[in-house]
């Protein structure tokens, strides 16, 4: 059943506990408390204690790239129960720039977000903006799309910007290669990422306030992944991310790399699977042992009128919803579903941008609620049942279950019915 384990618990005197807690909080701005572990799969429930507040995992982290979450105020985000969200170093480093954000009391002060922030290093933009970038041992050279100037994003520069942003979790600058690339470039990137990790650790000015996570690379090659895991886990970082996946790779390869990674990552540190956000992927990867997730998909797709629901998605802008007077999801408790119908939202898309905001709120609510339900089911020892019900709801029939998901879950003792 659920086993409650306090990470680093000292012998049982309250004095000892107090001094351990104190020592921990001085030494590290991150404490992971494992609250429950699923006896069937590799899933865990944790409380991740960070400087601004505790984050309950498994957690989905919405992405607010430019210091804002696409039309949603920080109060709305808070009201939805969000405890941590993302900002992006590349974008914010360009506009408005680290100096200004420092003047504004960090990204927290600038956007007035009182809970936790995680910043990506800018590494992913190397892949997504590959036309504009060139990688050397020094760092990544970008040509700014705004003024054509060349910028060098080195491990030191990335960490310096993130120090100015003041995020609770910072990501190392990694040498990111698209998951569809094969050959020696993948190995080169993996080794370089290790060297860059070390440079990032040295460069971190605020190790007592800001947590630096390593990012495991190695593409879709088990040996490279394993080598990376072996090396990076030797470094004393507060958490690990699984990177280089969620690109365009085959899902069959994807899950194998995820589970390989969680097999070799320390139990008592959080595991962050980057760029994963589709509901099925989230549920499966929680079963494979991941704690934290981020993805632009829910918020991006909202702006196109796509609402996420337990049975897939609903394209509100489609004609069939023009006269549909139900809410998006009759069971959903979000502000949008409590007040508005599909028909109203469908029509509103023709008149005002607020239509997008309604869907964004719904989608964030959907994601956070999904994670809360997952967490609850693990704590109550019924995660396997939850997975069965989830899949049943999501797919019209058993033969439509994605085979990669079936395989992945089978690998952690779940036979989908």
């Amino acid at each position: 059943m659920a086993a409650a384990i306090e990470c680093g618990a000292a012998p049982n005197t309250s004095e000892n506990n107090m001094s351990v807690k104190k020592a921990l909080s001085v030494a590290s701005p991150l404490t992971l408390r494992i609250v429950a572990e699923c006896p069937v799969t590799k899933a865990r429930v944790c409380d991740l204690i960070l400087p601004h507040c505790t984050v309950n995992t498994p957690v989905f982290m919405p992405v607010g790239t430019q210091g804002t979450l696409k039309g949603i105020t920080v109060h709305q985000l808070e009201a939805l129960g969000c405890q941590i969200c993302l900002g992006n170093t590349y974008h914010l480093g360009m506009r408005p720039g680290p100096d200004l954000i420092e003047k504004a009391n960090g990204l927290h002060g600038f956007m007035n977000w009182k809970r936790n922030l995680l910043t990506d290093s800018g590494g992913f933009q190397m892949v997504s903006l590959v036309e504009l970038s060139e990688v050397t041992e020094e760092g990544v050279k970008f040509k700014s799309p705004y003024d054509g100037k060349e910028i060098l994003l080195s491990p030191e520069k990335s960490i310096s910007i993130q120090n100015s942003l003041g995020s609770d979790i910072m990501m190392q600058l990694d040498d990111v290669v698209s998951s569809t690339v094969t050959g020696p470039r993948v190995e080169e990137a993996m080794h370089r990422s290790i060297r860059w990790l070390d440079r990032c650790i040295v460069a971190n000015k605020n190790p007592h306030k800001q947590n630096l996570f390593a990012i495991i690379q190695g593409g879709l090659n088990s040996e490279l992944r394993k080598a990376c895991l072996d090396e990076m886990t030797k470094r004393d970082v507060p958490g690990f991310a699984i990177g280089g996946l969620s690109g365009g790779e085959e899902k069959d390869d994807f899950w194998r790399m995820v589970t390989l990674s969680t097999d070799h990552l320390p139990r008592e540190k959080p595991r962050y699977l980057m760029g994963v956000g589709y509901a099925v992927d989230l549920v499966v990867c929680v079963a494979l042992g991941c704690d934290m997730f981020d993805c632009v998909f829910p918020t991006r797709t909202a702006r196109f009128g796509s609402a996420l629901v337990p049975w897939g998605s609903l394209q509100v802008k489609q004609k069939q919803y023009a006269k549909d007077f139900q809410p998006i999801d009759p069971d959903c408790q979000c502000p949008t579903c409590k007040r508005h119908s599909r028909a109203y939202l469908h029509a509103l898309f023709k008149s005002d941008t607020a239509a997008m905001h309604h869907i964004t709120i719904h989608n964030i609510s959907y994601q956070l609620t999904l994670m809360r339900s997952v967490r609850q089911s693990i704590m109550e020892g019924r995660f396997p049942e939850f997975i069965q019900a989830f899949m049943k709801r999501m797919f019209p029939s058993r033969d439509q279950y994605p085979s990669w998901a079936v395989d992945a879950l089978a690998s952690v003792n779940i036979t989908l019915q």
Partner: protein
Amino acid sequence: MAGGRMQLELSRVVQGRSRLGVLKGLGRTGQHSLEVPGCLLYTHFGTVPHLTQDTLHTLRNLPSVTQVTLSNIAEHQEVLEEFKDGFRKFAGLHDTVLYCSLHDPAALCPTGYTTNKTVSVWGSGGRIELTVAKFMALQKTVQPDWYQSMADGETWQNSTSRKRVRKSVDRTLAHLDECLLVHQKSQELDGVEVFGVVEGGDILEERVRSARETAKRPVAGFCLDGLQTGSMDQRLRTQLITAVNKELPEDKPRLLQGIGRPDEVLACVEAGVDLFESFFPFQVTERGCALCFSFDISLDPERAVLEQSEEKDAAGDIKQNGDLNHDDQTQMTSFEINLKDKRYQDDFKPLVEGCGCYCCKNHQRAYLHHLLVTNELLAGVLLMIHNTSHYQGFFSALREALAEDKLDLLKTRVLRAGAQQTERDEQDG
């Protein structure tokens, strides 16, 4: 006329023209009221632009009357007919009075499509032609608490001939009579109020004629239309409104369409207007600007001078080329600051010091600047909140000034920023 309960209770009439009071008996149950002079809550299809319920309700002093327009609604007639329960319920609007106008005051329509029997509105899919029959069918489907009758107001262009103006008056009266006929026979519109629309372009005699004739009909109040062009001098506008109001019963409200700039609002209140549409904050928002003009007359004169010179410095560097293009309603006014301007990049003050709105309590100019520069949706949300709040504050101050006989003081305060800006323009020439 099927009994509506709308009643205007005036508490003061200043200098024979500016009126202060309350419009009571609004809504189906007659329990809502709206202070006058006041404005309606401008929406797109029932939604205040950019805002959802949570963000909307950070605002304290919202008008009790929500305005929707047929230009947004007409294309959804079929859906509403199937829904059956009226627009208010369809839009998830709860406790509010619903007013339905013909056009969206912030969106200029193409001209040349109006006929003797029809007017046109432009929806997202293009032009929709309305006969009185269709217009009234829409009203029966929308089920507002109050609406303006169908009108031909296409007289705002400079080149409008006298003949055309006369036609607009004739047609509008004919439309009104037809609307009222249908209204009186419609059970669905029992208790709903109708406003007649006064037209007449810029021709005094036509304005008077339109007003006199409209006043003879059993309407609950009057919309003043066709005065919204930027090319109309405020003096002329005042003259026309004054003449119109002379013909209208004192105890019925006057709603001026399409005018929202603070200086024009003040002038029109002085000419006897009671109600305005609140689309101006939206226009300011769309150009990335924030309303900042002061309407605080409690400040002592010395501090007032200091603040004026601060505002002057702030506004001074904003280049406005030569002649202000009055026709362009999208052009920035002197009542606002342009947050895209580089000077706000590291300005950590709120939009307006002392403003209690959500935006000013939680965010700084530098952040708004960043949101605008990076094209982020949140900019619109925050600016709409602030601009709406500021505008409502202005109307509140206006009512207070009327109550305390301090309208001149308010005018000086509000207009001084504008005057200084014009001076600068003349200097820069």
